């Protein structure tokens, strides 16, 4: 690849540099935070099903652990590069800091395509990964979790290997475990609920009564469904939901002016959030083109599908009534569109903050695992509310004090917290 090619780590560094300028960080702090604190590169020999041995390349990057043990996923990807892992590890540092979790940031991975590996080979690969980094991870050091092409099954294999080596039960070394095997309740709800908790706080600031608001939601997956659930509990009315229809390779929106019935729609929805449109129409919903979710006359837009949905091309289609956008998806707004939203004075809760419910719940899982005491769902969710609310208030206060938009404020407050911790520890 040539030097001009796109590099995720370079991009992440540029973003950091901007924040560092605003915070006027000293050179040592910049140098420390621009690159990971530790990197492990190792070879993992795996005995394949046919008896041969294949060597896989594995990584674990710890970007920063000034605020607490590092936290971040393990990716299985055939074209994994160290720069991608570095960029993602850095991102984890900011992500844990924005919700003020006592955690740092890390990431790891293996260059492999699980499509070419049998489940047995994948198990040996997971165990092999642990054997290589056993000494460098731990419940109080660095805690992996599932990511691209890894799931709860991989986490259990890894946990088991770790426990075999340590000769003890250490459920806190890994998160993303199933309930009953060290997992936490409330994980399904966490991200969607987190979005609405932020929204509630935003409306409070804007002096709007949630029960008098209406919303339009893009996507009807897990996050969206739980967001709608909590929003409706607060008295809000969802008038429109869009959904991807697999059979037609197209998206549609379904609308009901008096508000959708969540349970009813769930009953005609597949596990990927695909609504059976014809059944929905029979239930009395109106079908409109997928992209029209954005044009609805509502107070709140919740993009909860995929990235890059609000762009320069359609940002002006947003109805003038819209006051708040809560970014439940990752990166739903393009930089160009974000500028327009600022100009239009539409209050945006950035993805970084709005969807931090997920990482917060992972933290709770780790805490519960370390105690070997597991909370009821209510307890998890009430603690989530507390965390998300205070995170929102600090970002919002920071934004007001420094005259920043919420997106910049969220990022800068994170960098600030991490650099402060480094300073307090006397590292820089």
């Amino acid at each position: 690849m040539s030097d001009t090619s796109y590099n995720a780590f370079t991009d992440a560094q540029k973003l950091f540099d901007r924040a560092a300028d605003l915070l006027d960080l000293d050179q040592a702090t910049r140098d420390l935070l621009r690159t990971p604190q530790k990197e492990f590169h190792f070879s993992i020999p795996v005995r394949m099903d046919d008896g041969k041995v294949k060597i896989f390349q594995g990584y674990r990057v710890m970007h920063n652990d000034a605020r607490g043990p590092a936290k971040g996923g393990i990716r299985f990807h055939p074209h994994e590069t160290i720069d991608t892992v570095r960029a993602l590890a850095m991102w984890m540092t900011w992500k844990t800091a924005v919700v003020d979790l006592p955690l740092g940031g890390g990431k790891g991975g293996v260059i492999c395509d699980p499509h070419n590996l049998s489940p047995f080979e994948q198990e040996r690969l997971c165990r092999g990964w642990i054997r290589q980094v056993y000494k460098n991870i731990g419940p109080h050091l660095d805690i992996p979790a599932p990511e691209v092409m890894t799931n709860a099954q991989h986490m259990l294999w890894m946990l088991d290997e770790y426990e075999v080596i340590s000769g003890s039960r250490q459920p806190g070394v890994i998160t993303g475990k199933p309930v009953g095997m060290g997992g936490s309740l409330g994980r399904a709800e966490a991200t969607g609920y987190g979005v609405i908790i932020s929204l509630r706080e935003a409306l409070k600031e804007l002096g709007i009564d949630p029960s008098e608001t209406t919303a339009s939601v893009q996507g009807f997956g897990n996050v969206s469904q739980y967001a709608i659930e909590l929003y409706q509990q607060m008295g809000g009315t969802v008038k429109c939901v869009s959904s991807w229809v697999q059979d037609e390779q197209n998206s549609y929106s379904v609308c009901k002016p008096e508000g959708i019935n969540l349970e009813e729609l769930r009953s005609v929805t597949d596990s990927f959030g695909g609504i059976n449109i014809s059944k929905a129409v029979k239930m009395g919903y109106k079908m409109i083109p997928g992209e029209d979710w954005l044009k609805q006359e509502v107070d709140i837009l919740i993009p909860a599908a995929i990235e890059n949905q609000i762009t320069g091309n359609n940002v002006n289609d947003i109805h003038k009534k819209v006051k708040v956008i809560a970014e439940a998806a990752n990166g739903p707004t393009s930089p160009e569109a974000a500028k327009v939203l600022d100009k239009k004075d539409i209050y945006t809760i950035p993805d970084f903050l709005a969807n931090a419910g997920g990482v917060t719940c992972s933290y709770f899982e780790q805490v519960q695992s370390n105690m070997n005491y597991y909370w009821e769902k209510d307890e998890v969710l009430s603690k989530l509310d507390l965390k998300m609310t205070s995170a929102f208030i600090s970002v919002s206060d920071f934004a007001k004090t420094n005259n920043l938009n919420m997106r910049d404020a969220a990022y800068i407050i994170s960098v600030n917290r991490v650099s402060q911790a480094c300073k307090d520890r006397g590292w820089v």
Partner: protein
Amino acid sequence: MSEKKPLDVLLGELKERAKELNCLYQVQELLNNSENTVDDICNGLVEVIPPGWQYPDICRAKIQLNSKTYASDDLVETKWELKSDIRIQGETVGQIYVYYEEEAPDMDEGPFLKDERKLINTIAERVGLHLLHQQLKNVFEKQNQADTEHKKEWEVILDMLRQTNPKLLIRLSRKMVNYLCWTGVKKAEELLERFGSAFHDEGELIDENKPFKKSSDSDLISLSYEIFEIAEDNLTLDKILNNIQKWTKEDRSGFLSKILENMGSSLQDINNAIERYHHLAPQMLELSEAREKGLRVAMIRRILTDQSDYIDIAKRFVDVNSFNELLNKIISPVGSHGKLGGKSAGLFLANQMIKKYTPEFESFAEVKIPKTWYITSDGLLNFMDYNNLEEVMEQKYKDIGQIRQEYPYVIQLFKSSTFPPAIIKGLLMALDDFGSVPLIIRSSSLLEDRIGMAFAGKYKSLFIANQGTKEERLVALMDAIAEVYASVFGPDPIDYRAENDLLDYHEEMGIMIQQVVGTKIGHYYLPSFAGVAFSQNEFRWSPRINRKDGLIRLVPGLGTRAVDRISNDYPILIAPGQPQLKVNVTVDEVIKYSPKYLDVINLQSGEFETVELEVLKQFGKEYPMIHQVVSRMKQDFLQLANPLTIDFQKDFLVVTFEGLVNRTKYVQQTKDMLEVLSKEYNNPVDIEFAHDGNNLYLLQCRTQSAGIEYKAAVIPSNVPIEKTLFSANKYISNGIVTDITHIVYVDPTKYSEVSDYETLKEIGKSVGRLNKILPKHQFILMGPGRWGSRGDIKLGVSVTYSEINNTSMLIEIARKTNEYTPDLSFGTHFFQDLVESNIRYLPLYPDDYGIIFNFKFLEESENLLTSFLPDMEKLKDVIRVIDVPASAGGQVLNVLMNGDSNKALAIFSDPTDYIDDEAKELQLGLRSGVIQEDVHWQWRLRNVEKLASQLDPQRFGVKGFYLFGSVKNAQAGPSSDIDILIHFVGTDAQRKDLSAWLEGWSLSLSQINFLRTGNKTEGLLDIHIVTDDDIKKRDSYAIKIGAVSDAARPLPMGTALKKNGLK
């Protein structure tokens, strides 16, 4: 006809069998008692026979033997009589009669059962043998009494034979002469001449053109003694006696070979002969190896098929006894000379192979074939004859348009015709045998399934629920058979036959009536799982999978969903050689590409239906092996399900077949089966199968070359380098992609130089837009690394399946950088979508030694990107859109792939005359198979192509023929018309002529559409005629010609006329 419960019928039948057995046993006792004289035996028989019959009270027996009559005193001879001859060495010496004194209900043969006919024949046979035995004993005793010292042992035998069976003596002598000649005895040759010209035996053919003088038997007998004199001089006594013994034994099976070899003998004759053979105790019939083989071949040829490739293989696996059971399940017209046809023959043979290998592979013991009845291939002609439908036979020589038009009437005609009584009787027997289980009626044509013929799915197969009263079931069965019969005269098969020069062959079609494998689950009937398996894998999703690892397409419910490609659902794919290498790895993928529907037979409505997996909520507990079929979603991973703990109401169940793969022997069983079958066929094979929870049933077996999947393309050598776009020699599967008019080339080097994320994203979006604009299935995508990469975008263009779904081929290019060649994705991100929509995948390694990659063509041809996407000027270095005919002097691109030699080649050639019609058809994915989702644009396109190919441009004054609108864009729905643009330059008269000609097509196409979809339209063609003037002014539809986007697509005219020499 009265409807009885199956249990009653069964009990009744069993009672009859017991009675018959008891009768036979008593007959045997009479014969075995050496004290009994012939009179004793005959008198005894008259007593023991009646109790063996269905109505013993009114049954009486009579025996006529050597002009003596034996009967009970109260015998009354009536017209309800069953008679069988008693024969000794072929000579009739008496008869056994059975009478009913009163009228009894009509059965198979008057009031008598089929089994009673067998019983009386068996008794007569045994009596005959007993009498022969007695005679021989007498002769022996006489011989012993006479002075034997002066006679040689062979002489004693010859004497004996002269008295008892002179014909056998002559045949033995003949064999001895032959034998002596072969061993080089000069004197024998002389005798042979004398013997040969004189010898003539019943049924043996000598050259009919030469008159021959028939010698009397006595001449021949005296000759016999001469022959054996010579034998004595040349052979040891042991040898002579051994030969006599061997030949005598062989002679006993002579009746069977004679019947089989006589082309005049009917299927009934054969059936009787085999039955007779079967009834004779095996030790009495030792056959020489050659004779046995001869018999086997004759039987295969007469009963199954006369294809030599098939016979060659089958003769190693089939023996005479294996036909016995088969013959009892054959329904045929009176005096039938029909065969069973390809599909039946294939299944029969596969079953024999599996039986043979059962000792080696234990699990084969659980492989079965479903209960099947057969109608012979002449049943169709018999049916047409009976209903005076001969004129339909001429259908095949009519114009295809007319055939199309008339097809609906043919179906109606066939359905309202009646079946001949012999067939109805057979069908009733079959229905009794089946009981009320659902049935599938399949065609088994003599042309279909021939080695090297992809006739697959051309004829119909139909499911029937087979519920209700016997009359209702019979009517439904006959209706289905008539419909399958009518499909022989449908336009698709006739067209196919015409193209393959098969039209003049008499199409005879056998029918298989097969029990649908399955169980009743709620009011549905379905197998636990079913599918198709291929011994050769043409869809490798990982470089670690070899072609020989095979492929299974597995679904829950009826296998129709695995056989056909269905756009909105997916079968589970398993490579039996590497069952742990899954297509789908992440939980999301596994769920997305799992089967969500089941094909079932609804026993209440009697219909074939597709139901959602949701039915498990209601009936999951009843579903056999459900825990091997589904996995349970446990938070975010999938667990193997456990039969007791599945909560069908609450659990989120996903069809994965993980249990089946990991906890049962199914995969190994299938793998072994594929290996055995392909080894013995010496060809890759494909099989259809179903599992009812207890046994695996084989439903079909044939060689893969004749199958539905991909043919190996012939890779031409010596293609000039300038006519080649690329070559490849890694991970190649079989296939042909023809008539590519556009290439979208994402330059790997330029792509890697793009430095910002937004632009990379935009490249993906632009490909997606091109996918909507370019002519459907006529363009290919070529790009770096991993298409659809979700992780690191710089490794491959980020697209979703919907952004590439109209391409005909997806090509990944791996450029070497610093001695490192990246891994390609093999399309894993949407692999199953590619498979189901028939988009081919090909990896290219341009930097490998000896590989051709025509950079010049790709980089220097005119780039049309900005004419399609004017706003994407900035991407013109990265994305190149090439109009192939415009840049290659009117030629189009064809990609030829051959997995056997692991080679692929993309070459430019003139627009075809498809390289291979068959391949083209497969490429279109058009298979009028069982019951499948109709893809409306495909058959419309095919017919329009045909129309154009038959349009004579000179006759009608047509300069150009174009297709546009929904058919061209592959968006046609069930009621869409076909938009055609004709560039007309002729006279008014020509225009009238043209309109009339097109009108005929239009109406017949609309009729076909009605048959397919039930949509009635006034003609299906929407014709727009434009003139030179319109084109000049770019008026109305004329702008479609050569338009930048959504241009009308020109179709070649008159090609069929040229091909047929009409032009």
